[in-house]
């Protein structure tokens, strides 16, 4: 056997058919490096100046830990509420025809389009004790503004589109035959929904809820106005970073930010991996 390559393998790989590979690669890599990756080095540079003990002391400080609890607790409540509310909205928007449906559909994107600070002051004003909603709720013993309920409310407001917009297309693609198969086999509406429809929506619902949760963890503008920002009680982690910055405690801010960053990216990765595995099972591949 000679070591000579086969004639058609000589030389470089065939030239790409479409033009612009070099240019688009150049622009993309330059941009990603300068805008996305380079700034991250600042964070790690700052963290490198901390010893492990110092780092641990900052991120396990009582007030900071309290802020984790508030943030994660409120984000979890908001995500769960949104899972139910988002599922209902997606279902209604896909399955039923009614006047005003297009308006309702358009309204779903409002939280994405509305600047968070605007959402923040609006919710704070609405749910303050003299606001339209606050006046109704306060006599019922439900205080929203300046409590963790308000934080959860603001989080739910900003992240509801994640659930609706992930579940909606999946529900649209569900063939009518799936419903019909369940019905011809004698299933009641409730049983068919629970045993057939819901499992189909499950990956999208979990993904959407997960994204809503991640978004809530990092949300800032919508929350700080309604939160009250009482240390140990209604202070969210994003605000802790901000507070440390205002104290010119860059190391502290960086340490807390690294926790938030790590948790967000880890969750995002987990959602992607989980979704990939689920989809594999439904669309083939041995398991």
């Amino acid at each position, binding site marked *: 056997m000679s070591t000579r390559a086969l004639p058609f393998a000589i030389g470089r790989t065939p030239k790409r058919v*479409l033009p612009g590979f070099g240019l688009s690669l150049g622009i993309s890599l330059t941009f990603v490096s300068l805008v996305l990756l380079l700034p991250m080095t600042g964070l790690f540079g700052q963290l490198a100046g901390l010893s492990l003990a110092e780092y641990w002391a900052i991120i396990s400080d009582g007030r900071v830990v309290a802020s984790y609890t508030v943030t994660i607790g409120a984000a979890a409540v908001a995500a769960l509420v949104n899972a139910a509310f988002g599922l209902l909205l997606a279902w209604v928007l896909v399955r039923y025809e009614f006047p005003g449906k297009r308006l309702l559909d358009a309204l779903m994107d409002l939280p994405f389009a509305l600047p968070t600070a605007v959402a923040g002051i609006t919710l704070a004003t609405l749910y303050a004790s003299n606001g339209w909603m606050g006046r109704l709720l306060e006599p019922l013993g439900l205080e929203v503004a300046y409590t963790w309920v308000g934080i959860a409310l603001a989080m739910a407001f900003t992240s509801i589109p994640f659930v609706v917009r992930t579940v909606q297309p999946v529900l649209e693609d569900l063939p009518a035959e799936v419903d019909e198969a369940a019905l011809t086999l004698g299933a009641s509406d409730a049983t068919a929904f629970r045993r057939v429809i819901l499992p189909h929506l499950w990956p999208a619902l979990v993904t959407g809820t997960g994204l809503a949760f991640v978004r809530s963890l990092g949300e800032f503008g919508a929350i700080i106005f309604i939160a009250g920002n009482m240390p140990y009680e209604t202070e969210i982690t994003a605000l802790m970073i901000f507070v440390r910055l205002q104290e010119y405690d860059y190391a502290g801010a960086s340490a807390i930010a690294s926790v938030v960053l790590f948790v967000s990216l880890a969750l995002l990765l987990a959602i992607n991996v989980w979704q990939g595995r689920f989809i594999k099972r439904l669309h083939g591949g041995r398991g």
Partner: protein
Amino acid sequence: MQRIGDAPGVRRTLILAAVALAALFLLLPLVAIFAQAFAQGMGVFWSNVSDRYTVAAIGLTLFITVLTIPVCLVFGVALAWLVTRFAFPGRRLLQTLIDIPFAVSPVVAGLVYLLLYGRNGWLGGWLDGHDIQLMFAWPGILLVTIFVTCPFVARELIPLMQAQGSREEEAAVTLGAPGWTIFRRVTLPNIRWALLYGVILTNARAVGEFGAVSVVSGAIRGQTNTLPLHLEQLYQDYNTVGAFASASLLALIALLTLAAKATLEWRAARQEAHP
């Protein structure tokens, strides 16, 4: 056709619940913004909007937005072209990387820029030595705004260009068209609405970014205050009506964004029905 949940009772209950919740949760805040802005009448609203600092904030916000959009547009189109038209190692990684700004808390985004370009940062220190100050000035605001808005155009284009495939461009190549002509005459007409929607989303986010900007701006009235920062200051100063006057301008942009989206979707649906 028989489908699950079609019984009239179930149907009516669910629609009613959805509409009621959406009205309370989404529509009411929207109404409240404008109600508050005009709470003391048209005159007060106008004097709030034409206030010197408000006008300066509007100006800065527009300035930043106008600079952000072309940058995001070039990056978005280049990235979408790259990942949908070529196969190369690291393609998936690149697609994942552009989602970072969506996952990162805006405050963290502002912080990392501050750490890099601020006086104590390794790049900032060098810049400071050359008398260039990026943080607590408009270039810093621009940088973080580009960071938080850069995925929008690419995210709109990639799925569409992936679905369309590269057959048409390949046909153009066989017909001897040069690169730019292919893009302008073949690709662009196919993606223009998605591109436009990407720009609209970029615009909405650029105008409204708060968390990241508040970290790097320094919020100096009349100088480094964007509209969202300005309304925060007014709100903290108990000038609620003034804050909501600014908020109503931003809400108007949000409404226009929603209307644009609905129109573009309607157009796309109609094109699908009557090609």
